[in-house]
C-alpha cells in the first residue's frame, strides 16, 4: 500500500513540477513542499489562529486581563449572554470563594470585598 502511495505521489510530484506557477495548486511547493498552517489549517484551529493574528482571543484561551477592581477600573467580565457567574477570591490564598451572578448593565460590587465587576459583551465567531 505504501509503495502504491509513494508511486502515486511521485507521479503527482513529477507532473505538478512541470505545471508550476499556481501556488494554491502546488500546496506549499514554493516553500519546499510542506504546507503551512496558514495554507492548510481548518475548522476551529483556523478560527483560533486567524483571531490570534488580529490580537483577539474569542475562546478565552489566555489568562484574563488584570484590573484594579475600583469604580474607575472595574474588572471587565466577558460574557456571551446577559449574565455570568463570578467567583471572587477577595484576598490571595482565600479558600472561601464568593460566588454571585453578574448582570448586564451597571457595575456590581463583590458582597465581601467590594471590588467592582462589569459585564462586557463577548462576540463568538460562528
Amino acid at each position, binding site marked *: 500500500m505504501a509503495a502504491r502511495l509513494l508511486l502515486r505521489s511521485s507521479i503527482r510530484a513529477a507532473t505538478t513540477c512541470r505545471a508550476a506557477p499556481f501556488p494554491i495548486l502546488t500546496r506549499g511547493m514554493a*516553500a519546499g513542499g510542506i*504546507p503551512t498552517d496558514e495554507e492548510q*489549517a481548518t475548522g476551529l484551529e*483556523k478560527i483560533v489562529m486567524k483571531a490570534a493574528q488580529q490580537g483577539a482571543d474569542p475562546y478565552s484561551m489566555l489568562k484574563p486581563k488584570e484590573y484594579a477592581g475600583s469604580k474607575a477600573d472595574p474588572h471587565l467580565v466577558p460574557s456571551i449572554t446577559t449574565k455570568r457567574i463570578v467567583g471572587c477570591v477577595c484576598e490571595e490564598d482565600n479558600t472561601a470563594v464568593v460566588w454571585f451572578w453578574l448582570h448586564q448593565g451597571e457595575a456590581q460590587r463583590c458582597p465581601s470585598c467590594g471590588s467592582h465587576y462589569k459585564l462586557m459583551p463577548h462576540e463568538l465567531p460562528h
Partner: protein
Amino acid sequence: MAHQAHAYHMVDPSPWPLTGAIAALLLTSGTAVWFHFHSLTLLTMGNILLLLTMYQWWRDIIREGTFQGHHTPPVQKGLRYGMILFITSEVFFFLGFFWAFYHSSLAPSPELGGCWPPTGIITLDPFEVPLLNTAVLLASGVTVTWAHHSIMEGERKQTVQALTLTILLGFYFTFLQGMEYYEAPFTIADGVYGSTFFVATGFHGLHVIIGSTFLAICLLRQIQYHFTSEHHFGFEAAAWYWHFVDVVWLFLYVSIYWWGS
C-alpha cells in the same frame, strides 16, 4: 461548527472504546482458554477486534484533527501531556524488568553457581551484533531528528527521505535481533538468565516494532500532506516514542549485554 465558547474538543459519541473493551475481554479470556483448552478462537477474535479498534479509533482522531480542525492549541497541549504520561508508564513497565534482572544478577544464588553470568551460560559478545544494534538505533535517532527539522523547515523531499531511513533502520534492528535470537546459545528456559534476557529484550523488540509501525503511519500521512510545518504532533509523538525505545535499548545494552556478560 459547534457553538461553544471554549477551544476544547467535545468528542462525538464513538463505538471504539466499547469494541476496545470487548477486545480486551476476548484477549484475556482467550489467553486463558488457549492455555487450558488449546483453542485459539477467542484469542484470534480478540486480536482482530483489537486491530480494527486501533485502526478505526486512530483514523477518527486523524479525521478530527487534520480534516476537521478540532486540534486547537489547548487540545494539542492535552495530547502532548497524554503521550508523555503514556511513555512515563512504559518507563515504569521496563523498570520492573530491570529490577528483576538486577535482583538476580547482583547477588547470584548458589543454584547458579554464585556467579553472573550463571554457570554454563554462554553469553553473547557485546561487541558483536549487540554493538551494531546500538549503532543502528542511535543512527535512527539522528535520522528521525533530521526528519523533524525537515518538516519544520518545509522540506518535503528530505522529510520523506529521513523518515524512510529511520523506518529502514528500525527494520534492520528487528532483523538483526531476530537473527541473534535464532542463533543464541541459550533459551528463555535457561534459568533466570534466560528469563530476564528474553523478557526484557523481547518486550523491547515488541516496542521497536510498535515504534516502527507508528513511524510508518507518519510517513504515509506526510506523503498525503497531513502535516504542516507548525502543526505535526502525530509525528512528534512518534519521534518521542522512538527516542524512548532507543534509550531503553541503551540501558539494556549496558546492563544485560555488557555488564551482565
